């Protein structure tokens, strides 16, 4: 262990290669591409992108990839184990599990991604503008988000479900409501430090409007961490939708979502005897969330070098 200078990891070596290429002038348009190249060199993140894309495509174009309607009830063929006609068998009222998983994925992904994007847009634009504009408003928003954040996430979500009632739109709204605070704080801390930079003062001296300064010249500096946040909260929201629907408190049961399909697993008999009704969905959720997490990690490593352990 003597004389140990930092041992180079695989990522470090890749980065050296990229830098060497850049210095020898083989690569043009340095900055943008460096992020992309670093991301491309992260093997896990690439796998994440592939798996993510496959699942999203399968779900989006579900009618092409399935032979059965997800709502088609066939009481004669209930509890069928996987067969050629029903790849993943049928459930307790004879619906095709495989097509239910694909159609359910549409809603689950929509809720997860929609919640994360909505929270990011609100949090970031509010964060940038409010912080740039003034102390007092910032104080109020900050206190408010502090209160929201002192609730454990799942408690807050359940509390809002009780107050607002149970529906798909409400769930999406609840995710946005609980998610914007984190993005706001992140954008805020970044903007606070950027605000003191000289180029901002220069822009002010030129007489540019606040709106242009904030959204054209400050916001791009915050996009990296926001992208990371979007991926990680998508993963979190997909998991939460699944958990809530599993408990019967998320999306109403008649709409298929990944969590709602898993809802049958609360029955011990099904849990014991009919593995195809709950195991494949659970695996799909896990793999999907895992792929998003790897993508998020990849983005973080490529935009934020300090995070690279």
């Amino acid at each position, binding site marked *: 262990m003597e004389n140990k200078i930092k041992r180079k990891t695989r990522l470090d070596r890749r980065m050296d290669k990229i830098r060497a290429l850049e210095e020898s002038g083989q690569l043009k348009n340095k900055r943008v591409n460096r992020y992309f190249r670093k991301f491309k060199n992260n093997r896990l993140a690439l796998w994440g992108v592939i798996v993510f894309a496959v699942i999203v495509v399968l779900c989006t174009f579900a009618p092409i990839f399935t032979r059965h309607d997800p709502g088609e009830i066939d009481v004669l063929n209930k509890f069928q184990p996987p067969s050629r006609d029903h790849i993943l068998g049928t459930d307790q009222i004879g619906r095709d599990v495989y097509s239910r998983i694909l159609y359910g994925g549409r809603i689950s992904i929509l809720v997860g991604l929609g919640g994360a994007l909505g929270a990011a847009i609100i949090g970031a634009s509010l964060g940038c503008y409010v912080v740039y504009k003034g102390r007092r408003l910032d104080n109020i928003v900050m206190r408010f988000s502090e209160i929201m954040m002192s609730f454990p996430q799942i408690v807050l979500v359940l509390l809002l479900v009780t107050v607002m009632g149970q529906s798909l739109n409400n769930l999406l709204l609840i995710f946005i409501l609980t998610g914007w605070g984190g993005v706001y704080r992140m954008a805020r801390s970044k903007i606070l430090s950027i605000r003191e930079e000289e180029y901002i003062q220069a822009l002010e001296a030129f007489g540019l409007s606040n709106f242009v300064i904030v959204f054209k010249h400050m916001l791009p500096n915050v996009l990296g961490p926001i992208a990371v946040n979007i991926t990680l909260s998508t993963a979190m929201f997909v998991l939460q939708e699944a958990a809530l629907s599993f408990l019967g408190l998320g999306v109403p049961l008649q709409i298929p979502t990944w969590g709602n399909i898993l809802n049958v697993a609360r029955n011990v008999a099904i849990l014991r005897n009919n593995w195809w009704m709950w195991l494949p969905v659970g695996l799909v*959720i*896990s793999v999907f969330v895992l792929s998003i997490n790897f993508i998020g990690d990849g983005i973080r490593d490529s935009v934020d070098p300090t995070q690279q352990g």
Partner: protein
Amino acid sequence: MLVYTLRRILILIPMLLFITFLVYTGIELMPGDAIDYIASPEAIANLAPGALEALRESLGLNDPFIFRYFRWLGNIFKGDFGYSLSSGLPISVIVYDRLPATLELAIAALILSSLFGSILGVISALKRGSILDYALSVVGMIGVSIPQFFFGLVAIVLFALKLGWLPYAGRTLPGYVSFFDRLPHLILPSLVLAFTMTAGVMRYSRTSMLDSMNKDFIKTARSKGLPEWRVNLIHGLRVAMTPVVVLIGFRLPSLISGAVVIETVFHWPGMGSEFIQAVRSQNTPLVMMISFFSVTAVLAASVVVDVITALLDPRVRLD
């Protein structure tokens, strides 16, 4: 230091007041009659017809909103949290009943995850860049990606239904009283809960260990000729563990109601499953009060953690 602590506590008061205000507004806005929440069910059942209005008047339900709020707040301080709508029991009794089970589960999971998490994190920091480090980080990622309840279901099927080693639901069997009788029931839920929590602790302790390994005092220790294990474990670890302890401190209060899903999967009779039942039956007062307890616990813990950090590290001060 005392001033710092006091200020830290004083900041909490307006926040808590605001939260109680929200909680009370939620209870008032619920569909149904607020008298079911405020008066005990026996008192209402024994009433002569027409006396309901008199009871209403005597309880002050016809007063303006702000008066009602302050009376309710006063009752909270006296330990009277009102009544649950579905069972008619006082909420304080429900909490007294459910809290021990939740604490048992939460503490077991916390101990397991802190232990495994910090050990694995330190190992992967010391072996940075090795295959082991890589594998551990992938396993950690899997740990946070599998839905908790799904992992619980798989564990139930595997160890309880197929192998039959452990009971799959509940906290105890009738007639069993001591902690050791209950232990088999605790194993599965606490391990499942711990598995998902371990990943976070592991990540955190890895980063903070790496951070402290680059500090000057580590180089000093090494240049004194101390054996490598002493440098790592005595000098490095001590500093690296401070943020990890803080993280663990933050976890306990959020577990009190945050283990809702696992408690439901394993039919564990704790606060979490009570909470879920309350949400499901639209029992607004109970939902509000349990949320209120968990927020209070989180805020109190954050004060304690802040004060401890300030004690450990003189650079931290209130800005």
